[in-house]
């Protein structure tokens, strides 16, 4: 009874699962019919019976319809006793002694007479679709007769098949299997494309490579070939990883964290993932410098505790592991070339929403106020100008004052103003200060190997033209070699070197007043001194000191320069010794060094130099700074990083793979040292290399009294630019780690890992540092179970569960049981001075992130559809930060543990091979990530008030980066901003609000949903692919007019023109009134942080589109190439966005609403040649 009901239950379960899968299939619109299979098991019993009877019995036992001619088979007697054997076996047994054969077609088994068939010879070559390289050891077999062969070292094959063979199956590990029609007897050229799916079977953690089946962790893997073209278009390796893995988010917005894995897990410590190249951490900058996008073999994203905890205290934000290419054994020298040119252009000026000269002058006319800013006050004090220390009268004010002073008539004034209104600064600015950005990339790579030696190398050039007439050139060399010294000893050695040189100019400090001109119609320089200093002062400077304060920005720009020379070196060597069966020792050493030298020079006639010289001149004309020569700054930066690692790995199978064990234990020592120096000299002549001495001590301490121009609010100008600066930071780490993966019967997987990191946390006792990072995980390959064998179309189903702890440690010298003193030199005191930079705190502890992950991997319909789903929960405790203290202690705050937060979400990846025929292929990949963040506890120094809440990034009870806004109540009838208080009364000041409940939560600036949709099509020699990326469910502030009072010193936002002017305007506008001086009755923040100015930042962009043409065979052959490919691609061709304000959410600071540079679509052309 019980048994039956359980069977029923199971059937019900299968049924429902089947329904689920079916509906899933329908949902995806992929056609697939459930077919019978000859591997179904049946039980048939017949003893010396007629063949016809036997076949009928088989028909009955199986679900096949067996077709035969009764008369033909009647005379044959057969015996079979099959107990739970496959249909195929049974059929073979039955027909063994008969002249019949059978063919399976769908639901039918056709039994027919064996005829002697003629044979044909099929020959051909199997190559990689993209590179044209021959594939060695690919399997080719006749689909009908199961006759097959494999390809040789040159990729060729030859098989003799019955003439009824119409197609062959071609397969190769890591490539999509293809069925190729072979009607004719000829030489076939067969291309296979790499399977995105198959290579994902190996995960690389940086410490080991392990087959995916044996890990319970959450990984995603991206192949180098997917990155290469994208990186050429973007000019960045890491940016091009966008959209290729779930959970990994690339944010371009100005104030966002650029790279994030699974949300924000720290407030004050590092939030970026750990980047690792060939097993050793490198900074994201170093990766862009060192790694050529052609050389990347694969990138693995380690997302959960089990995946990442091997990286210990650095892994709380996830890990990105980059592996570079290596050579292949038994391969002759292969050379390939890859080059591209990408055009980016200039930023789109109109995106900034600034006024035209015309609109600007119109508004100046409206707001000019000689009562508040009298001629007397503006020419004698800095009235109304913040950041200025000397009187200034701007060109757009001069005509008004001239008219009031009676020196010009009204018509002359208007004529001057309309002249300004007709001048456009931008076209001149773009001409004299800007250039179109583009980058070029050329790389030649070579690889090969013999029996005991493989190599891969590349030489590359990168040229990068910037938008400010700056250019950088980089040359890089990469060589990776593996030596199999003996059967048990392998050495590998990788060497990278790159040299880069860049040059640019020093941008003069200019205002962007829209009417300014740099040169007149005939190209003569125009001075902009008026924007810096009132002319009578400038004249006085000239008369007294002979210093001509002419400000010619284009000349200053052209004559100044910034040169940078950089050099990066990396040597990475490894030693592998097989000690006994399964046990290996691995030693690894990496040394990385980058150094850059920067030289910046501003010559004698540079305005900044002249200005400083005037500020150091007394009103009687005594010059205290050198009268000739310019400013030279030389700075050096060195980053040295070395790692030594020793580890033992054990990898063994027992009882025919019933037990599989992989274990790893090791330790590692690492040092990272960052040093920099800078030197500064005044009065330097670059050509003659001479400089003039002056009294630096007096200038720094006493300063210059009664100077010609003011440098600050102080009554004497002091000059304390540092002559020599040095910085030196050293981080040292010692780590011990271990990792075990056990698999039973290829079905059940258990993982565990542990790591202890200790670092030179200055002022911290070692006791506090013993914080093991650990994880455990389990996986179940359900599809391997017998009871799953009924699901023929389910190729793979794996469940994974993991839990663990990751950490994030404070920086050295920040927090510990002792007061940390920082030395500094001050000319005021005798002897060294010390400041207490952190008070003692013996309770400080590391940030700890507990991570749960549950995942499902599946693959359906002969791997046509595959994907994975992960859901995670991360709980971070002991967030590091400035913990508020009772200020009576002498500290308002000190570094400590101040709160907790959590992240939860899920991720879905779907890969589908929609169509696959000889000529046409269509693949789709879809990724979706969801992340929800919440700060569950956070200590703050002062409770937030309604006035300062909008500035807070992290507030207890809300997601990180939540925007808080005032509820806008419109403008008052005199144009002042108003908002609703908690009780819905209208207030005009945030200070009048009763509490923070008056504000509303407008949502977070971190996307809740993000991901990508990629499609690639191949038709014969053409390939088209494109990727959409999307970020959804987040908010941003809009850019606004921030100018509400005071004098105009720069161009204004167009919204200023929409401001409240007279009573009644409040019905049509929300832009507050302008007042000539600060109106203390007015609280502009009510407007700037109003809810009406928060918008949905969601968008989807066509991130890249590329079209690739592979040259036909005969052309390649003629040119002695395996393959030639031409690529045209475009970036950011169009965008769908949720806001109607024309804002590109990737070109704005989401939090403040300030727009940043936005570029039009970029275009790239590339060529790849693989030589024979």
């Amino acid at each position, binding site marked *: 009874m019980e048994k039956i009901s359980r069977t029923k239950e199971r059937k019900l379960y299968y049924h429902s699962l089947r329904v689920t899968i079916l509906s899933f299939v329908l949902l995806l619109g992929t056609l697939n019919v459930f077919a019978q299979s000859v591997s179904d098991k049946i039980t048939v019993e017949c003893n010396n019976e007629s063949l016809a009877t036997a076949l009928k019995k088989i028909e009955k036992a199986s679900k096949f319809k067996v077709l035969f001619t009764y008369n033909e088979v009647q005379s044959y007697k057969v015996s079979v006793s099959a107990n739970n054997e496959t249909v195929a076996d049974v059929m073979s047994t039955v027909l063994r002694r008969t002249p019949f054969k059978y063919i399976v077609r769908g639901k039918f088994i056709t039994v027919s007479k064996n005829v002697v068939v003629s044979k044909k010879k099929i020959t051909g070559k199997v190559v990689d679709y993209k590179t044209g390289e021959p594939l060695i050891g690919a399997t080719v077999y006749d689909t009908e007769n199961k006759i097959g062969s494999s390809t040789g070292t040159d990729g060729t094959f030859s098989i003799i098949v019955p003439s009824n063979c119409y197609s062959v199956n071609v397969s190769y590990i890591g490539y999509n299997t293809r069925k190729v029609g072979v009607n004719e007897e000829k030489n076939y050229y067969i291309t296979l494309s790499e399977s995105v799916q198959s290579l994902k079977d190996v995960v690389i953690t940086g410490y080991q490579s392990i087959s995916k089946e044996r890990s319970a962790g959450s990984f995603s893997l991206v192949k180098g070939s997917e990155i290469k073209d994208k990186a050429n278009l973007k000019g960045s390796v890491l940016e091009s990883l966008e959209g290729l893995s779930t959970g990994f988010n690339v944010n371009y917005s100005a104030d966002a964290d650029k790279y994030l894995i699974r949300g924000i897990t720290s407030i004050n410590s590092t939030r970026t993932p750990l980047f690792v190249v060939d097993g050793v951490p490198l900074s994201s900058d170093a990766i862009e410098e060192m790694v050529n996008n052609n050389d990347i073999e694969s990138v693995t994203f380690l997302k959960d505790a089990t995946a990442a905890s091997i990286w210990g205290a650095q892994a709380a934000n996830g890990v990105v592991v980059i592996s570079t290419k290596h050579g292949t054994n038994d391969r002759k020298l292969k050379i390939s070339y890859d080059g591209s040119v990408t055009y980016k252009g200039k930023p789109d000026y109109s995106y900034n929403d600034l006024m035209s000269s015309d609109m600007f002058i119109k508004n100046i006319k409206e707001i000019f106020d000689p009562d508040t800013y009298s001629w007397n006050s503006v020419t004698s004090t800095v009235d109304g100008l913040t950041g200025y220390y000397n009187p200034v009268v701007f060109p757009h004010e001069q005509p008004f004052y001239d008219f009031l002073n009676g020196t010009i008539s009204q018509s002359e004034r208007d004529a001057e103003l309309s002249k300004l209104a007709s001048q456009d600064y931008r076209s001149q600015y773009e001409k004299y200060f800007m250039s179109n950005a583009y980058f070029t990339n050329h790389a030649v790579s070579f690889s090969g190997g013999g029996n005991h030696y493989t190599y891969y190398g590349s030489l590359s050039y990168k040229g990068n033209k910037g938008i400010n007439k700056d250019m950088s050139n980089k040359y890089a060399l990469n060589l990776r070699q593996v030596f199999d010294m003996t059967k048990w000893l392998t050495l590998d050695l990788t060497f990278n070197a790159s040299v880069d040189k860049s040059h640019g100019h020093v941008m003069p400090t200019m205002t962007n007043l829209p009417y300014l001109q740099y040169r007149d119609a005939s190209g003569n320089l125009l001075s902009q001194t008026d924007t810096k200093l009132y002319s009578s002062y400038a004249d006085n400077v000239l008369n007294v000191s002979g210093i001509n304060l002419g400000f010619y920005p284009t000349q200053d720009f052209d004559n100044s320069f910034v040169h940078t020379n950089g050099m990066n070196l990396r040597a990475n060597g490894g030693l592998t010794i097989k000690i006994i069966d399964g046990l290996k020792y691995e030693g690894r050493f990496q040394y990385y060094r980058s150094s850059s030298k920067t030289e910046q020079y501003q010559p004698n006639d540079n305005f900044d130099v002249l200005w400083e010289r005037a500020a150091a001149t007394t009103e009687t004309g005594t010059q205290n700074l050198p009268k000739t020569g310019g400013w030279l700054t030389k700075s050096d930066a060195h980053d040295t990083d070395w790692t030594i690692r020793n580890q033992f790995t054990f990898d063994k199978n027992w009882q025919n793979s019933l037990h599989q064990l992989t274990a790893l234990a090791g330790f590692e020592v690492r040092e990272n040292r960052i040093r920099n120096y800078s030197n500064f000299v005044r009065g330097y002549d670059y050509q003659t290399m001479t400089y003039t001495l002056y009294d630096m001590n007096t200038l720094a301490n006493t300063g210059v009294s009664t100077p010609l121009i003011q440098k600050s609010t102080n009554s004497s100008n002091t000059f304390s630019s540092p002559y020599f600066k040095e910085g030196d930071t050293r981080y040292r780490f010692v780590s011990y780690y271990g990792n075990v993966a056990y698999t039973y019967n290829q079905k059940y997987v258990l993982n565990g890992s542990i790591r202890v990191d200790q670092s030179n946390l200055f002022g911290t006792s070692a006791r506090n540092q013993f914080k093991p990072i650990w994880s455990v995980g389990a996986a179940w390959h359900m599809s391997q179970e017998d009871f799953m064998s009924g699901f023929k179309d389910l190729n793979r189903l794996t469940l994974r569960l993991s839990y663990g702890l990751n950490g994030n440690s404070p920086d050295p010298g920040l927090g510990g049981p002792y007061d940390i003193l920082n030395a500094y030199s001050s000319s005021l005191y005798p*002897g060294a001075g010390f*400041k207490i930079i952190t008070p003692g705190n013996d*309770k400080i502890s590391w940030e700890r992130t507990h991570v749960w992950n549950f995942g499902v991997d599946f693959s359906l319909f002969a791997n046509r559809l595959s994907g994975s789903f992960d859901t995670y929960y991360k709980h971070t405790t002991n967030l590091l930060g400035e913990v508020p203290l009772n200020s009576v202690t002498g500290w308002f705050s000190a570094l400590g543990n101040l709160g907790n937060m959590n992240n939860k979400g899920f991720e879905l990846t779907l890969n589908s091979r929609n169509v696959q025929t000889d000529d046409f292929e269509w693949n789709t990949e879809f990724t979706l990530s969801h992340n929800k963040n919440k700060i569950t506890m956070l200590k703050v120094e*002062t409770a937030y*008030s309604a006035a300062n809440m909008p500035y807070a990034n992290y507030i207890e009870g809300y997601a990180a980066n939540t925007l808080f806004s005032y509820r806008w109540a419109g403008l008052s009838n005199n144009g002042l901003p108003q908002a609703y208080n908690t009780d819905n009364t209208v207030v005009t000041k945030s200070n009048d609000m009763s509490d923070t409940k008056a504000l509303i939560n407008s949502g977070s600036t971190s996307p809740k949903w993000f991901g990508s949709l990629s499609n690639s099509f191949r038709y014969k020699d053409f390939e088209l692919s494109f990727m959409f990326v999307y970020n959804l469910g987040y908010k941003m502030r809009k850019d606004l007019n921030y100018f509400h009072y005071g004098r105009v010193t720069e161009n204004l936002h167009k919204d200023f023109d929409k401001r409240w002017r007279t009573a009644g305007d409040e019905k049509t506008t929300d832009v507050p009134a302008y007042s000539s001086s600060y109106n*203390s009755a007015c609280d502009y923040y009510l407007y700037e942080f109003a809810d009406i100015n928060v918008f949905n930042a969601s968008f989807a962009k066509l991130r890249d589109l590329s079209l690739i043409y592979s040259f036909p065979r005969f052309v390649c052959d003629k040119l002695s190439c395996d393959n030639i490919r031409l690529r045209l691609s475009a970036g950011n061709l169009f965008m769908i966005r949720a806001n109607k304000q024309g804002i590109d959410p990737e070109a704005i600071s989401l939090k403040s609403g300030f727009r940043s540079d936005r570029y039009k679509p970029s275009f790239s052309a590339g060529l790849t040649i693989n030589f024979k």
Partner: protein
Amino acid sequence: MKRYNIFNWSFICLLLVALCSCSDYLDIKPRGDEVAKKLSDYEGLLNSNSLMSLSYTRSTSGTSMTILASDIMSQYLSDEWITDAAGLKQLGNGSTMAGGGYGAVQAYEYNGDVFRTSDYSAAWGSIYSQLYIYNVVANGAMDATDGTTTEKLAVQAEGRVMRAYMLFLAEQFFGQPYDASTASTDLSVPIVTEASTGETSFKRATVKELYDYVTSEMEDACPNLPDKTVHRLRTYKAAGYAMLGKVYFMMGDYANALKALKIAKTTLSTDSSVYLYDYNTMLKTWGYKAATPEKFVSNSYPALVYKNMETVYSKSYSLTYICSYLFSGSLYVKPEFMDLYGANDLRRAFYVAKSRTGVAYPYMRPIIKSVNLGISLPDIYLMLAECEARTGDTTNAESDLLELRKHRMPAADAAIPSTVSSKDDLICFIVDERKREFLGTGLRWLDLRRLWNDSLFQTEKSGYTHTDGTNTWTLTKQRLTLRIPPIVLQWNTSWKDND
């Protein structure tokens, strides 16, 4: 065979790394950072920019600092100021960080709520954060690993004297003025004698407890102070005793004040680095021209307190927003205060009624940018004179007063007027001299507190007013203390705030 060789090699590799990973490897100190161990470390803590002024800064990332507040509110409470609506508006344009702003206007209008919920107080913040450093020195110097006992005691004494003086300054802003009859119940500020961030409960000491602690700590430590100083930013015997004298002076204990001040004066008599400037000769040197007094705004007058030869010990605050000639004026000096100067009093030279380009405005002192709350020589002379006058020694009082006056005006004008005939007249004249000497600095605030109950100065009180031309605000007894900033109160909810 070979295999064993390799084993050996890998073993050596392992050993090498194991050696590296012993604890020494992790014990490197970041260059530039230190933990206090040696006496020079404690000395170094005293050679600190953080102790220079009453500006409240905080380290942001590592060693860079942000100024949270630098505006000492008492400067706006002093009775010498006058302004108009425009000036008050200009005052409001500032910020607590740089000077002026909301709190400045509230203070000028004698409103109690000078600090809003999120406002930092420069006085509270800087005093208690400096107290932490002085406590580190006072409590740690004797444990230094090197130095003789005398050397250690000297460094310790600096820490002790200064922590006492910092508490005394905090009392001047946030505690009730000293009144012997109520001092044991009047509330002052908490006495903190340990450098600890772990402490969470503090209580406000009574005024008596505070002065008892301050005076006994200073009496105890002053004898150990070094005789000479290396810099005006470091305390030594003369400065220590003068500070002690100032504490007694503020308590109205003129006899004890006199004792301490006399020691200070004796010590100073042999110190050539501290002297009074003779304005009769110096004004010209500083660039003053009688024909163009308004140009005497930026010159070589040593406006920075620690560079001024009259400074004994410098603990300064900034007056930028009242005094800068770069901005339109905010607060001016009342005409009746200007009238206190004799026609030939050279201190007048510092006040102008015109901007440097000739725009007329009320009297302003544009030259000072920092004010000394530490000890200056004129202050010692004036305190001495008053103590002597109050204790009946009018002869010495007059001679001390004369000593200062003759450095400020031609000798012919320096003599004390004959109208000053009685002891009380002399006391009043000395207090007026204090006004003349410290006009336009806000230092008068301390005298307003000290003399509030003094019978000689009750009639003056009607003049303790501020105006903007239309409104008038009067100083009351409650406003002699600032309220505790809410940012501090929220941590110490059990405290009773000032009225």
